[in-house]
């Protein structure tokens, strides 16, 4: 279900709005970016929030997005980016 990404891979954040504790913010869902780095594997915060152990660990990625692609009304220059730390299960290849 989740891919194994490398820096430079294009990825898209899936669009879903599940109830409960999520750490993928609303504004980035559905947006396309590039893997900037693989950050390692961590227990899943969505499970830790309810007293579970969050295992098995999930891979965390830093994903870089162009601001002009994230916001239709972005006022700054095209070189600006937003980097968001996103877990593997929220990403699909783009």
């Amino acid at each position, binding site marked *: 279900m989740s891919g194994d990404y490398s820096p430079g891979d294009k990825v898209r954040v899936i669009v879903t*709005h599940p*109830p*409960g*504790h999520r750490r993928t*913010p*609303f*504004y*980035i*869902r559905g947006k396309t970016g590039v893997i900037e780095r693989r950050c390692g594997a961590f227990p899943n*915060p969505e499970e*830790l*929030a*309810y*007293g579970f152990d*969050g295992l098995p660990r999930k891979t965390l990625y830093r994903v870089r997005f162009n601001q002009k692609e994230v*916001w239709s009304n972005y006022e700054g220059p095209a070189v600006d980016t937003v980097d968001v730390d996103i877990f593997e299960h929220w990403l699909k290849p783009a």
Partner: protein
Amino acid sequence: MSTADEPGRGYHDIGGLDYGAVDPVATDMKPWERLSTAISNALGGAGRNYYVTDETRRTREQMGEPLYSDLDYYERSTQSMKMILVEKDYFTEVELEARMKIIEKRMAEARG
């Protein structure tokens, strides 16, 4: 937990919204705010793990509006810590409110 316009957005999930100009002010923690933070840190120290940060993030997202917007940061932290400790049965709301009344009376008497 979310607005009618954007049903998928929790009230805490505010990236991209507009809450006005930033006031670049930094104030010192009040003593009780430091105490509240210290209690939280103590409960997580020395191999204890009474709760993890993810759990209080979650209770912060569960306290509802208008509480989330009415309270300031340390009040929200205190409220979310209270919520997780009550959830895990370390004390009850009734016990807590009763003790708060006792302390309030004690402090009023001390003020004379």
